[in-house]
């Protein structure tokens, strides 16, 4: 005798127990401390903060531990927490020109004021697995300290009027994607906000496609800088700005070719990327995709996926994408039954009238 499946509640409870056990692993080993994650997995922490849209290293570390290192799950956890936080106000725009730089490279000039600063990078590590990591040697002190402020490379070009200009303050009040739905066409500030929250892997693939002919924009890495930037707020009741702390940021300004047009003299154009923490791959990908998405504004032919803002912005978010792809594992048996029943009807009809072929649509002939 068949009995309808019951016990969903109990199954969930058991599954949660198994998950907790699997997450913890061998209990003989000490539990990871959040400080260890924060200090030793800092690039993971940065990604979770960036795509989770919440600058909090401690919470990002907690999310990573709870998610057993699944970054998309950790991002989801942080987002779900973030959405419940009250909003006390908005910071003033961050001034990355006053960044206390720890890394700064430019692909466009051999030397630049302040110099090329490699800082902590995997770029020249030779990628040999280090089977015997030992305590790092003490860092050799620099012969001269880095200047406290370094001009941005693009500002130097700007002085020559060879690169497009954006007057500060021209932008309208930015729209908050976490409070209001995206609508199309989306302006650049909204697009950048979406890309900033977007999945690094998705943006990387999109950016890569622009380098392979799908919206080639002849990019140069004008400048990539990483370091600390102060966060200022201006409470209405105070009437002046106060510093509430500083955060680590990675900024990428791409310089792209532009032939001129729409009444504009030939000049370089820009693509912009910004990421919390050390997130260079993300910032660079974002800058390339940002530039590709400016095709309409710059009067360029739009044909490639990376130029299609509905395509890019609607599919960039890992929390949305992951949820919807994985929802297919939920039961769909009611709809499947509907399809079965339809197919049986169609099959029965065919076998009942074998000589009468259904009409084909024109497209199939």
């Amino acid at each position, binding site marked *: 005798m068949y009995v309808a499946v019951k016990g969903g509640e109990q*199954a969930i409870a058991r599954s949660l127990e198994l998950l907790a056990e699997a997450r913890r692993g061998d209990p003989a080993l000490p539990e990871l401390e959040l400080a260890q994650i924060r200090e030793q997995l800092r690039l993971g922490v940065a990604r979770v903060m960036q795509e989770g849209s919440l600058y909090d290293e401690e919470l990002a570390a907690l999310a990573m531990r709870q998610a057993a290192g699944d970054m998309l799950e950790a991002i989801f956890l942080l987002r779900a927490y973030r959405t419940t936080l009250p909003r006390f106000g908005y910071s003033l725009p961050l001034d990355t020109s006053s960044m206390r730089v720890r890394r700064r490279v430019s692909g466009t000039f051999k030397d630049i004021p302040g110099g090329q600063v490699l800082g902590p990078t995997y770029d020249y590590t030779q990628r040999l697995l280090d089977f015997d990591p030992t305590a790092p040697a003490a860092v050799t002190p620099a012969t001269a300290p880095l200047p406290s402020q370094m001009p941005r490379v693009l500002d130097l070009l700007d002085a020559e009027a060879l690169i497009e200009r954006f007057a500060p303050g021209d932008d309208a009040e930015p729209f908050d994607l976490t409070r209001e*739905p995206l609508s199309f066409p989306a302006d650049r500030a909204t697009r950048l906000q979406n890309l900033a929250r977007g999945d690094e892997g998705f943006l990387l693939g999109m950016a890569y496609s622009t380098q392979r002919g799908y919206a080639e924009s002849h990019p140069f890495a004008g400048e990539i800088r990483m370091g600390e930037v102060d966060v200022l707020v201006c409470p209405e009741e105070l009437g002046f700005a106060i510093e509430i702390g500083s955060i680590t940021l990675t900024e990428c300004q791409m310089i792209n070719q532009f032939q001129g047009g729409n009444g504009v003299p030939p000049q370089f154009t820009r693509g912009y990327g910004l990421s919390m923490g050390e997130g260079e791959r993300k910032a660079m990908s974002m800058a390339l995709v940002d530039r590709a998405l400016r095709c309409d504004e710059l009067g360029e032919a739009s044909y490639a996926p990376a130029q299609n803002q509905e395509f890019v912005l609607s599919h960039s978010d890992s929390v*949305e994408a992951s*949820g919807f792809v994985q929802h297919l594992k939920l039961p769909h048996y009611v709809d499947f039954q509907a399809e079965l029943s339809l197919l049986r*009807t*169609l099959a029965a009809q065919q076998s009942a009238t074998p000589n009468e072929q*259904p009409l084909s649509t024109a497209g199939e002939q």
Partner: protein
Amino acid sequence: MNYNFAFLDEDTKRMLRRALLKAVAIPGYQVPFGSREMPLPYGWGTGGIQVTAALLGPDDVLKVIDQGADDTTNAVNIRRFFARVAGVATTEHTADATLIQTRHRIPETSLRENQILVFQVPEPEPLRTLEPREAETRSLHALADYGLMHVKLYEDIAQYGHIATSYDYPVLVDGRYLTSPSPIPKFDNPKLDQSPALMLFGAGREKRLYAIPPYTRVESLAFEDHPFEIQRWEQQCELCGAGESYLDEVIVDDHGKRMFVCSDTDFCGQRRAEASA
């Protein structure tokens, strides 16, 4: 930390409530809303959950079903969520509920005027598979230009001799907006027409919500020579004997033997209880 009653903060509830009232005032039209990130994944009912959270009060009795059943894991999880964040009473009995959140079914038991049905919607745009661009579909709705859908249905008839849509079967609400009834089997479509209960639809990932008010004309698209028809089975439910309910097909042994049972577990259970009483 403490979450607010029903998880969402009051600003978010007000935003949802304003959008819901506009949705009711413009039947079948998809109102964009500032969908929040919920602690359940997108695609798993975040739209329905937000609508329910905006409606829910301490006096409500909540029922949650998925595939018609109260005990499927996702339904259990959503019911658990609201019991935890709102402390509301829950029920499995359609007749006892004031609010019913559903995925993929409309209960067999007729709903009453003082009940509200909340649908979880994965893709609110009925034209999306025919036209992926939102800017474009929005214009088509503005012009009530639904030729694309009629052509699609007509091509089905040309190719298969039937309209080959068996669930999420498009409807025209109050003669104006083409609307997705969510992926309910077309068997349930007639229950949308002139329903005594208000029906609300939430699509969290797509950030849209819409409504079908009570006592509103809801037509399933059809052609004069191909009228709309619902699924029928030769079998009856093997548990309660119902001949008019939507049936699930269950494979019961390794030889592929099938049996058919009601998809609506509460309906089936009530009938069996009445029969044995």
